[in-house]
């Protein structure tokens, strides 16, 4: 098990980052902070997916002059590109909401907002 974890240290790092992000979301009170946490989670997942496509001694999957096999898998990269866009879209919407919430309630601390309800 430990050896497997060591071999897959990239995956493990992603999981750790994922959990840190989750921790921020659950434990922190500030909405912006929560969202930073979510972004960390997202990058962690992206990192995991990128790591899936890695091949030992591989090159970027760009077939130009000087490129030589083996190449990293292009699919995870394409997925992550889309994923990043999705992440920034979510962030933009969330921050818009946070701005509005601050406008209306004067605070972005989750517990204070809960009291206002």
């Amino acid at each position, binding site marked *: 098990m430990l050896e497997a974890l060591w071999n897959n240290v990239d995956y493990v790092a992603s999981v750790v980052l994922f959990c840190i992000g989750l*921790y921020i979301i659950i434990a922190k009170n500030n909405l*912006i902070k929560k969202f*930073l946490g979510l972004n960390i989670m997202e*990058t962690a997942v992206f990192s995991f997916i990128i790591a899936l*496509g890695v091949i030992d001694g591989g090159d970027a999957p760009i077939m130009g002059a000087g490129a030589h096999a083996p190449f990293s898998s292009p699919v995870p990269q394409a997925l992550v590109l889309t994923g*990043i866009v999705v992440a920034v879209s979510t962030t933009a919407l969330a921050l818009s909401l946070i701005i509005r919430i601050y406008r209306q309630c004067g605070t*972005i601390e989750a517990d204070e907002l809960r009291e206002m309800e």
Partner: protein
Amino acid sequence: MSAVFDIMLLVFLIVTALAVARAKDLLGAAILFSSYSLMMCLLWQHRGAPDVAMTEAAVGAGITTVLFLVAIGRTTRREK
């Protein structure tokens, strides 16, 4: 050598992420997050994913951070 670089990057990432969690100043947290993204971008470049690295640099470190900064500017800088 490469493995050492990798491990350093990963450790650095985790440390930055923890720093984001600890920071009380939201502006600081956002900047830390930006550096986290840049670190991620380096890692991905190193993993043979230059496209993604570029996107992460432009979007993750760039646009996302700007949006966070705007939001912090429009709300509050301190986390209670």
